[in-house]
């Protein structure tokens, strides 16, 4: 199977010039499928954690966005129990001008700026609105329990 040039270029650049705190490595037997890890941003409840994700570039990428989800459990209003992520650039606001790199940066930014007004995990979002310090404390605990490097 010939891999589109765009994907080859993106992969080469991800390896040659990695983004700080982000790693993406393609599987040997499926070059559209990546193991990803993202370090929790400083000054966020996810600081000190390393989160594993998986990313897949569908057949019609880059006309459709990459598919991506967390494999590490995380307490966040925009990430559900199966690790699915609610992020505009992964859905309606996707553009072929975006890349794997920019998407991973957006996800890292989402960790630094949870948005409980556009929730995917409703119970988490509600707690975030009603008791933000408590929610942040839980997010910190989960980071220590599930995302220890």
């Amino acid at each position, binding site marked *: *199977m010939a891999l589109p040039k765009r994907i080859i270029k993106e992969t080469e650049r991800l390896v040659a010039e990695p983004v700080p705190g982000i790693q993406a490595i393609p*599987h040997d037997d*499926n070059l*559209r*499928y990546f193991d990803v890890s993202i370090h929790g941003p400083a000054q966020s409840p996810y600081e000190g954690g390393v989160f594993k994700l*998986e990313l*897949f*570039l*569908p*057949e019609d990428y880059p006309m459709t966005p990459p*598919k991506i*989800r967390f*494999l590490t*459990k995380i307490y966040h209003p925009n990430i559900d*129990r*199966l*690790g*699915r992520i609610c992020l505009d650039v992964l859905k309606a606001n996707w553009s072929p001008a975006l890349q794997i790199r920019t998407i991973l940066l957006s996800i890292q930014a989402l960790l630094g700026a949870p948005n409980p007004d556009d929730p995917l995990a409703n119970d988490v979002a509600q707690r975030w609105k009603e008791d933000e310090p408590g929610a942040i404390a839980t997010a910190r605990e989960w980071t220590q329990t599930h995302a220890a490097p």
Partner: protein
Amino acid sequence: MSAKVPRNFRLLEELEKGEKGQGSDACSLGLDDGNDIMMTNWNGTILGPPHSVHENRIYSVKLHCDEQYPDVPPTVQFLSRINLPCVSQEDGKVDPTKLQCLGNWKREYTMETVLLELRRFMASGNNKKLPQPPEGSTF
């Protein structure tokens, strides 16, 4: 050859099809444990086909997708008692050699493929007339 969708993203597609109600009306499918990030165990139901002894019955099944799914088929086990040639009368397990889609599994098949084929099997030839255990009994 087209892009090969990895196991987990395939299972997410199957889950979302169920969640959005885009699947067949004749069967349903959901995760056994909504917290299981590996999405291994599933619950399915099959609505008994019309014009058969199964009409109006609802059969519950368990499906198990191991790490090699969808390169290998799921294992399927009836929870509801049923008298059907491909189903063990001891524990409700479906014998993969006796159901075409399991025996000749293809990667593009889904769990819904299996549920719908079981339903067709219930409605076929002699199977639609087989005497059945009381409705609602379980293995």
